[in-house]
């Protein structure tokens, strides 16, 4: 059976900085200023998430997968990455995308339904979000094999949920990563739920212990502790950079909101559980730490608030101001060059649309005739 491994923790839920001889050295550069900056990121990311959820409720986005409660896991790891590392994530890692420098409007593009992907992966070294559960872990492993072949020292990092660890793809990714000692970091956000299914349905042992069976060393970290997540990620990145192969990180966190805006967690989740986790809120604890250290001045508070509000305004105006795509855009980029089948269909559809005064009438279910 598995050992019940303790969580790596550097900040307690009450906001107390505790020492950890093994992991402290990895965050010794995080001074007061950096801590304030992490607090800013956490706050901004939560604000983005709240704004996007509101946009969905107002009908501006078709759907949104909230990350409420998972900010520290995303910021702690996202901020640990180097620019030339490459991220393969799931649909929930908007905080990581923010850390990678993804334009905020771009984050909403897919959820508004105006594009199949929001950004060019190569401009920010982050693949666009994956919906097929676990598929991205294989992509990251392959990318890492490429890094290895090239003799580079960057790292591929893949994000996925606890539920994903049940998928064949994730298990096969771990086989490849271990066999080839690929420089890849498996970052599992164990937020305790896969839609309605509790983590215990996916795994009989601690998620972190799954990896060891594949020969991949693993770390189990308090996912609501931004410093601990950063330290663990840096350890894993460093190992990968120096030829030490893959590492698996289980960030133990909690999805405080619904799975997506289409989900109703009250059907399957106990309210007490939510309360317990609210007490471990990732932002509150950094705030408490800053307060203890006397760093949360009015000036810092105001700055963080203003930044978060400005970002929220940007995301809202960017989203609402996004132009609708053109009908004929659906035929673009199916192939890299002309395709005779598609050319014919495209030509016919253009003629069809031309036969209507108003193309909107041509596409309603009721019809215009």
């Amino acid at each position: 059976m598995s050992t019940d491994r303790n969580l790596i923790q550097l900040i307690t839920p009450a906001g107390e900085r505790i020492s950890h001889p093994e992991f402290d050295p990895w965050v010794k550069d995080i001074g007061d200023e950096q801590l304030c900056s992490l607090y800013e990121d956490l706050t901004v990311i939560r604000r983005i998430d709240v704004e996007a959820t509101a946009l969905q409720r107002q009908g501006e986005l078709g759907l949104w997968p909230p990350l409420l409660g998972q900010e520290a896991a995303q910021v702690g790891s996202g901020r640990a990455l180097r620019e030339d590392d490459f991220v393969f994530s799931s649909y929930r890692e908007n905080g990581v995308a923010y850390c990678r420098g993804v334009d905020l409007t771009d984050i909403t593009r897919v959820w508004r339904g105006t594009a199949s992907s929001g950004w060019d992966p190569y401009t920010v070294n982050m693949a666009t979000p994956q919906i097929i559960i676990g598929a991205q872990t294989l992509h990251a492993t392959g990318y890492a094999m490429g890094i290895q072949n090239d003799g580079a020292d960057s790292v591929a990092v893949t994000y996925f949920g606890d539920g994903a660890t049940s998928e064949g793809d994730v298990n096969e990714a771990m086989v490849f990563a271990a066999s080839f000692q690929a420089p890849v970091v498996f970052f599992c956000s164990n937020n305790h739920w896969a839609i309605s299914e509790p983590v215990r349905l996916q795994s009989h042992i601690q998620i972190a212990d799954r990896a060891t069976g594949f020969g991949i060393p693993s770390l189990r970290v308090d996912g609501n502790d931004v410093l601990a997540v950063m330290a663990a990620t840096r350890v894993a990145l460093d190992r990968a950079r120096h030829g030490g192969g893959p590492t698996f990180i289980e960030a133990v966190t909690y999805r405080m909101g619904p799975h997506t805006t289409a989900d109703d967690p009250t059907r399957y989740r106990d309210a007490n559980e939510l309360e317990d986790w609210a007490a471990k809120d990732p932002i509150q604890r950094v705030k408490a730490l800053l307060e203890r250290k006397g760093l949360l001045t009015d000036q810092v508070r105001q700055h963080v608030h203003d930044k978060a509000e400005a970002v929220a305004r940007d995301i809202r105006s960017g989203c609402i101001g996004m132009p609708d795509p053109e009908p004929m855009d659906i035929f673009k980029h199916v192939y890299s060059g002309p395709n005779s089948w598609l050319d014919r269909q495209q030509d016919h559809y253009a003629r069809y649309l031309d036969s209507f005064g108003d193309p909107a009438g041509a596409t309603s279910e009721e019809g215009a005739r």
Partner: protein
Amino acid sequence: MTQMTFARAINSGLRKSLENDPKVILMGEDIGTLGGVFRVTDGLQKDFGTHRVVDTPLAESAIMGTAVGLAYRGYRPVVEIQFDGFIYPAFDQIVSQVAKLHYRTQGAVKMPITIRVPFGGGIGSPEHHSESPEAYFTHTSGLRVVSVSNPQDAYTVIQQAILSDDPVLYFEPKRRYHDKGEVDEGIDPGAALPMDSARVVTAGTDVTLVAYGPLVKTAKDAATAAADEGISIEVIDLRSLAPVDYATVEASVRKTGRLVVTHEAGQSGGLGAEVAASITERCFYHLEAAPVRITGFDIPYPYSKLEMHHLPGLDRILDGVDRALGRPNSLSGLEG
């Protein structure tokens, strides 16, 4: 007769099957406590227990592969694939195992597995949530493929699928889940129209319009609109996509002399091509015009703001009807 939604009708059919046969077992992601993301299995776990209605880990290949093992053991698994686009991880188990075991074992092993797949578009979903993968399966021998278009059929056909000793892919048009209709729950699925029969939904004399699943409603609406213009459309709900009930389609085309087939899936290699070719073979001399296909385009399912351009709507179908009738249409003057 009871008024109920499509989703409720499937739920009621599943309940009947669970009641009638202790070997029926439901498996899938989120089907238990949550009752499925579309609530199709709502309440079933509460009433039949966690051994009969099983929330599985997130692993489609495992869901399908363990269903094979359960079938070996004499069970009749009914698995839910949460959305069309998530069936591919299970594809290997379906086409290499589920479809072929009966043949491989010369009939010794039966695979009475029902695979429920909410499919099709029109609900504004993100990628992988609106696909029409039926042709992959109609191309695989050993599988039966059906798609229902109304609550009554949903109710009876799910029971027929579960009763079938062959594996059945049961495609549920998710954009019609909330449509209501009369359902006779007293109907005996053994005495009802068999699931491999097509049905004439609207009788007509000028053109035969073949549809299935979500587009049957659109086809019916098109027939109503056409009637106002003096065109009489005979709408056929295929119901079974593999095997196709060609006798019913053939009889209709012999009468009308014209065929239009519509589906949401892309055109090339799609079921419409199969129907058009088969009907051309069977009643070439009765055809007054080349069969017309009104389908989705050969593109990945587009983002939601443009999905209605991809999906055949009423007007696009009527434009196809005009083409079959040689009336002015968007392609008038074009050769081929």
